[in-house]
């Protein structure tokens, strides 16, 4: 079956290639090159190359590369990118031609805020729907919690993106859980994107160039997760001159250095951040917490070398860590490491290839006790290596063929743990697990008059391999742990269980007029690794579990349709999208499940199905002194799991019926700009006890009927403000700086994260009735002012 599929896929690929070669019989030549920012040398992603005489155009890819094939002739060609002046070039196309351009140069950039688009009319003309990209300049003007510019908090201002609450790690896209987002940093996956639980993300804003989120219509070149792809790309580093960026906020201080190594050939960026809440908080902590350690830091580095016009290498690395310590009694730390090496190779000026090799690791360690008699040490890790070749074949301006593949080697180490009790050592480590994930894809992007199509297929494969065990479980009453029946050992490299899936993807756009279009898409996605988490917010100790003989891969089908319209010369962009998504083999858990340090965890997993549907609305104003966007989502995300909620559909903990955010910017004058963000969402669902009963002297809560998530917390709403004061502009001076003043939660609302139930925490004498009460818990229950200073040299 497997081999037949591969043959089929390869055959199809070949046929496509052959059919497209026949088009080359005419006298046509390709014009190709890179487009970059003249000031910094950074390549521009999504810059438009347009040929008015033939009314055809292309955009630069994620490496700034473009290729356009045209019949022999002389052409006027427009190179444009929002925020830069358009360049007109005359090209005499008599042979294959390479033309790399720098936009902007030293000229002052236009005073314009780019919200979520690179080409002015991209909203309407781009085939890709259900995607948003965020501009770092815009992001830096948003009011920020404690003055820290935040990539992951900012994407929550987009339609379809939500979170279970403040401080929670990760984000939910179109009703998917947080482990269904593939977060890529320069193509390497990041397994835990949070610092300090979920307050800050691992992305240093000074090192990020571009952020793109795919919520639906996910092209075949992406795979491995169900709900979304968050593609974060780092800056290459200024290839023109030495630049320093830095900032001092209340939480972090940041510094980044970028410089050319060999001018226009090689450059680097090194960016670091460290928190100092521990330093700042020390005088305010009482003795209780005086011995605590609390810090987090990260280091991002990247370098590139351009060997020649056809070959360029990029090496990126990220290293970050969060550390907590409580005297010498306990310590806890976690962090990610990623490294990716990418090689851009241009075979002909029509065939662009990028091959990525990456390594990614997430690990944590916990230790208790410091004596030889009693201690506990536990580390856990997920580690993977991958190679990912990708090819883009620019057949004609109307036909782009992409194909490639990926192979990943995983190692899961759920626990390397040793407890020492009264001097005796007890090894409670769990076996490592190993797996291989692979995939091939082919996708074809075609423009046919007003129609544009992208259809593709991804074939994905997962194999859990030895050395390791396969566990067989017996039946148990619903909601009880399933008993272990048999454990079978497998030798190194032996296949324990494998899965394969065909994932069709399709997107189309119909251009009604230059100002409006209709788009539709369908995608099937498969996910082979699962984050085991049964808490409201995911914890840093949650463990990734591969698909096994007991846990099947998650599969999702999503349909989306949308209408896109721009007004007033693209000053206003609007879109409305509807989506419907089904999810199979969703992971859930029995009540009281023990998900960590448990060899038999698979016996506590329940499998269910999910569905999510909704409407997303986005209106944005891109031009003028007053800019911003309004995002609204009407959505539902539900699950059906045998053994939960009496086997009926119930809303996910992160389900929000209404989610509205209004983000605005206003330029007061050359130096002052202000921004305001208002967020509103329906309260998330919760389960409340109805009754209590007394057993063994304890007052135990009980929910009559055993429903799940059948009440709602009060609505969440919040207003944040910020003002940015730019330093005096002096063309002579290279030092530029600004101050950002922010107020988070301006009207001081205690938005509940949860409502929980407890008995009076004070001692009630044995035999007396206890008081039970409901408590509203707010993570950020007060208004939080902050100030940050940023500089650039």
């Amino acid at each position, binding site marked *: 079956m497997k081999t037949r599929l591969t043959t089929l896929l390869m055959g199809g690929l070949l046929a496509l290639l052959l059919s497209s070669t026949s088009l080359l019989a005419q006298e046509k030549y390709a014009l190709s090159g890179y487009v970059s920012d003249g000031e910094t040398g950074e390549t521009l992603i999504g810059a438009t190359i347009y040929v008015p005489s033939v009314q055809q155009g292309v955009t630069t890819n994620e490496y700034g590369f473009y290729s356009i094939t045209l019949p022999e002739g002389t052409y006027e060609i427009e190179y444009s990118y929002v925020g830069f002046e358009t360049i007109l070039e005359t090209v005499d196309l008599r042979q294959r031609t390479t033309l790399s351009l720098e936009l902007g140069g030293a000229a002052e950039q236009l005073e314009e805020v780019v919200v979520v688009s690179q080409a002015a009319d991209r909203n309407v003309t781009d085939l890709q729907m259900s995607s948003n990209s965020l501009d770092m300049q815009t992001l830096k003007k948003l009011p920020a919690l404690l003055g820290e510019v935040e990539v992951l908090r900012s994407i929550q201002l987009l339609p379809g993106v939500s979170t279970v609450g403040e401080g929670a790690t990760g984000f939910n896209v179109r009703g998917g859980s947080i482990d269904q987002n593939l977060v890529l940093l320069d193509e390497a996956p990041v397994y835990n994107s949070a610092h*300090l639980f979920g307050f800050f993300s691992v992305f240093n804003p000074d090192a990020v160039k571009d952020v793109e989120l795919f919520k639906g219509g996910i092209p075949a070149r992406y795979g491995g997760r169900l709900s979304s792809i968050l593609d974060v790309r780092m800056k290459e580093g200024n290839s023109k001159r030495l630049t320093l960026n830095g900032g001092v906020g209340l939480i972090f201080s940041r510094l980044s250095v970028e410089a050319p190594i060999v001018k226009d050939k090689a450059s680097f960026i090194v960016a670091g951040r460290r928190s100092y809440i521990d330093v700042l908080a020390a005088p305010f902590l009482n003795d209780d917490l005086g011995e605590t350690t609390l810090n987090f830091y990260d280091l991002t580095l990247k370098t590139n070398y351009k060997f020649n016009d056809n070959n360029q290498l990029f090496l990126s690395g990220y290293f970050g860590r969060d550390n*907590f310590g409580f005297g010498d009694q306990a310590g806890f730390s976690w962090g990610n490491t990623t490294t990716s090496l990418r090689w851009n190779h241009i075979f002909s000026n029509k065939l662009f290839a990028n091959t990525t090799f990456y390594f990614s690791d997430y690990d944590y360690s916990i230790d208790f006790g410091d004596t030889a008699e009693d201690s506990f040490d536990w580390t856990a890790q997920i580690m993977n290596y991958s190679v990912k070749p990708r090819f883009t074949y620019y057949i004609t301006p109307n036909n782009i063929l992409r194909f490639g593949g990926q192979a990943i080697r995983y190692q899961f180490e759920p626990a390397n743990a040793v407890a020492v009790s009264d001097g005796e050592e007890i090894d409670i480590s769990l076996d490592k697990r190993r797996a291989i994930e692979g995939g091939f894809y082919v996708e074809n992007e075609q423009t046919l008059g007003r129609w544009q199509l992208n259809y593709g297929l991804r074939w994905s494969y997962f194999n859990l391999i030895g050395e390791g065990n396969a566990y067989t479980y017996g039946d148990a009453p619903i*909601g009880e742990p399933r008993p272990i029946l048999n454990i079978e050992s497998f030798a190194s490299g032996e296949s324990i269980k494998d899965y394969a899936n065909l994932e069709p993807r399709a997107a189309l756009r119909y251009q009604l007029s230059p100002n409006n279009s209709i788009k539709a898409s369908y995608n099937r996605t498969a996910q082979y690794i699962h984050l085991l988490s049964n808490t409201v917010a995911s914890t840093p100790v949650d463990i990734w579990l591969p698909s096994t003989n007991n846990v099947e891969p998650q599969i999702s089908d999503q349909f989306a349709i949308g209408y896109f319209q721009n007004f007033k010369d693209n000053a206003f962009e609007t879109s409305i999208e509807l989506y419907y998504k089904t999810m199979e083999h969703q992971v859930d858990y029995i009540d009281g499940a023990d998900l960590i*340090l448990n060899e038999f965890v698979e016996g506590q997993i329940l499998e269910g199905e999910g569905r999510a549907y909704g409407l997303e609305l986005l209106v944005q104003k891109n031009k003028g002194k007053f800019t911003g966007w309004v995002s609204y989502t009407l959505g539902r995300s539900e699950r059906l799991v045998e053994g939960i909620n009496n086997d009926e559909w119930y809303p996910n*903990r992160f389900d929000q019926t209404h989610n509205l955010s209004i983000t605005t910017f206003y330029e007061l004058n050359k130096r002052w700009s202000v921004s305001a963000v208002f967020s509103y969402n329906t309260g998330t669902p919760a389960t*409340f006890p109805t009754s209590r009963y007394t057993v063994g002297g304890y007052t135990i809560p009980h929910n009559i009927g055993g429903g799940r998530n059948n009440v709602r917390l009060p609505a969440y709403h919040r207003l944040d403000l910020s003002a940015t004061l730019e330093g005096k502009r002096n063309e002579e001076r290279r030092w530029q700086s600004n101050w950002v003043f922010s107020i988070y939660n301006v009207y001081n609302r205690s938005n509940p994260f949860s409502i929980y139930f407890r008995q009076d*925490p004070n001692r009630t004498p*044995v035999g007396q009735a206890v008081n*039970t009460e409901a408590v509203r818990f707010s993570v950020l229950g*007060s208004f939080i002012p902050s100030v940050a200073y940023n500089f650039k040299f």
Partner: protein
Amino acid sequence: MSNLKYILPLCFLAAFTFSCEDVIDIDANFTEAQLVVDAFLNDLDTTQTINVSLSQDYFDASVPPAVTDAQVVLTNVTKGDVFAFEHKGNGAYEWTPTSDSAIGEEMDEYLLTIQYNGFTYEAGSQLNPVPSVDSITHEFREEELGNPEGIYAQFFARDLEGIGNFYWIKAFKNGEFLNKPSELNLSADGTFDTGTGADGIVFLPPIRELINRVPDPDTEDDSEVPPYVEGDQIRVEIHSLSSSTFRFLQVALEQMTNGDNGIFALPVANSPTNILSTDPNAPEALGFFNISRISSAEIVVEE
């Protein structure tokens, strides 16, 4: 491994001091009172009590309504002995062993039968073995991490051989049972939960040390008072549990202390009962029946 539950919220609190909590008024939507059976028995030579009551509105801070008209019978299935429990008032049903009627021996199987409102409910349990409490020790500790200086105690015991032994450790200070949910001390094979593969170990330190009382947050200066002072009497009992009782108590513990987990709260869940009716039309009951062997030790804190 539930000791993580202590470290995560602690980290979170240390990291963020902007959080706040308010007691609020809401309606519990309590609709029906359910039969509650509280039957934690043992093989000691003392009066055995089963409490039968009704569940109440979650916010009803009164003593639970007693069920006074149930028939309560315990059967030692292994030996065929039948023990009738008599109602002695306030929903307490009692039976006292005599010289010629002992409850039974280790590993005997039991069946509890309760008749109430025309329905019969049954629950089974086994008299599982228990390890001895080897010692209770105490030491003077300096102030550390918010714990005041003073005397702290721990007990030592070793898990029985074989995987799948479950225990409930009860601590008594000067005869008073430490009864807060946060003091509920459970162990599976000497660790916190099943699935670790640990066996026959000395109980892990956090379990050994949970015989020190948890201070009251609202009682002034209570957190400045050490758990024990000279002259205090410390009593530690280990009760053997069945695996289903362990699960019942563990889910109850998770639910009663779920608020301490902050943003890492677990889903609200009902503790699974073993009081099941033979009639599918019978209203569902709550509570648990378990029969334990008990080991204990006692010391007086001396200088």
